[in-house]
């Protein structure tokens, strides 16, 4: 019995339901972006959670991972894990660098005498807002 013969029995209804869910979630993301959840971090987390939910729907239904061999899911998930490793270690470095000794990365005044194309102040102080 081939994999291809299997999918014959599937009705296309789940695909339609998935599309509707994805469209609703898109509307929710856009709506959520107008809401202030207190801090921009929370907003980003909300947006990323919704995106991840959408992405999971696409992967499981449209990309057939729920019926596919586990190997393909493993490949998919491991790519995300390794991405997490890249992000995680870079964040450990960037976040802890400032605390130990300031590198001045966040203050980007041009070095004295350096030609700068931008006439505007290099680092906007909070007072600008």
């Amino acid at each position, binding site marked *: 019995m081939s994999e291809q013969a299997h999918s014959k029995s599937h009705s296309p209804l789940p695909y339609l339901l998935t599309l509707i869910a994805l469209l609703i979630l898109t509307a929710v993301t856009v709506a959520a972006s107008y809401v202030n959840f207190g801090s921009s971090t929370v907003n980003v987390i909300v947006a990323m959670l919704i995106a991840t939910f959408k992405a999971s729907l696409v992967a499981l239904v449209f990309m057939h991972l729920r019926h596919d061999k586990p190997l393909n899911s493993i490949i998919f998930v491991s790519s995300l894990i390794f991405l997490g490793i890249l992000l995680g*270690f870079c964040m*450990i470095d960037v976040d802890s660098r400032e605390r130990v000794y300031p590198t001045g990365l966040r203050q980007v005044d041009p070095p004295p005498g350096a030609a700068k194309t931008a006439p505007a102040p*290099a680092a906007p102080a909070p007072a600008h807002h």
Partner: protein
Amino acid sequence: MADTITATHISGHADHHDVDYLHDGKGLKSWLTTVDHKRIGVMYLWSILFMFFLGGVFAMLIRLELLTPKQTIMSAETYNKVFTLHGAIMVFLFIIPSVPAALANFVLPLMLGAKDVAFPKLNLFSWYIYMAGAFIAIAAMVTGGVDTGWTFYTPYSTTTDGSVALMTFAAFVLGFSSILTGVNFVATIHNLRAPGMGWFDMPLFCWGIYSTALIQVLATPVLAITLLLLIMERTFGIGIFDPKLGGDPVLFQHFFWFYSHPAVYIMILPGMAIISEIIPTFSQKTIFGYRAIAFSSVAIALVSFIVWGHHMFTSGQSQLASAIFSFITFFVAVPSAIKTFNWIVTMYKGSVAFNAPMLYALSFLLLFGIGGLTGIFLGAVSVDIHLHDTYFVVAHFHYVMMGSTVIAFLGGLHYWWPKMFGRMYNESAARVSCALVFIGFNTTFLPQFVLGSRGMPRRYYNYLPEFQFLHQLSTVGSWILGLGFLIMAGYLFASLRKKMDAPANPWHSRTLEWQTASPPITHNFHEIPTIGGGPYDYYRPVGKGRNA
């Protein structure tokens, strides 16, 4: 799967059955359009050997320049370009494709009892991409050269003149070739093992190549995007890596080493994989600790992804990150040591034959021991602060990259040469050449450990007069090394002009690639082999093994 095999499946293409792959189709066109993994492997082999020659010439020039403390044969600017090209060629054009794309391409399907790799056309395509990358790299050399070092560190690489963008693009293209090879091998090992061959019935070479392919798939894309960002940085001045524009040059190093540290294991794992084949064959003994070696390959592959920061201890990376990376780095030693102990124990009470491949394997054990142990020095933050960017580092990675990977590659080349070309080379000449390479290598790089620990910085054009003796020793070593390679080229080419004389199984190995003719027929096996035992069952009488 096994029950689906019927005689009709096997007996297709009866017309090709008795022609070996070298004679199945004549002329250049039959090679350039082939999808046979063996021919593609051979095309890769000649391409990388040419690149090895080119990179070797640059290496000899570097050593020659360093014969005297001041200018010897070239200007400082030329020197910067020469060592950059040596590094870039050896890493991207030789070592990374050497074992996987050339040797494994040829051997892996044979070892698995398959007719070909999973995607033969993709395999050929990846060779063309490799060639395209090679031509772009050569174009970059001709049109101005590159003086950044093979690591392309920002902000120097975004500000210096020369063909940095072109060279970076070459590495980008070569990365795709490497990715496609990796995809191909993972799919091959998952799906094309002969009926009855479980994961633990595979030769250990396949485990090593599998781990390598995983790294190629998971790490190379990050290099691709990093290099693309570098090109954009040069073209548009985006500023991500440029501190002047508020960017973070250390981020480039993170991205670069996220690939390039695992890439070190793309280079060494296939070398280890070859050693795991040579040692049981020439000891005529079952490998000791099959599963330990198999799992340690995968373990090395996985750990390789979380240690990259040990290249950046002095880069301005945070101390917290350095401490974590340093700590994890020591874990690499565990699977490496497991392998080394298992190889040594495999030889114990075996009937060891000292043919050329085995001599290379024994050299590997010694040189990898030195390379690995000095790596522990460099993995410790406090020691690395002093040794970073000195000749100690140069010596360390040459012991691992050349002393281990290249030596293992040469071992594999001598091991499979009769299978690939159906001809035996001159054994005595091979032993002499191996001895010269071993002596030359150590004469070249052992003094560099001393130089480095005394404070000689790497990549410097001039040096203090008190370093001259050790530098000269190193240069003399490079000449011995060159002589060894010259002899090797001589007897290998000479063997190609002989009539085909290699028996199917000259080393009395038990793995599947030796159970077919030398050179193999186009479809590898007359019948798809069925597997009934392990790949190293030397305790069984010949003919009563797995393929009886």
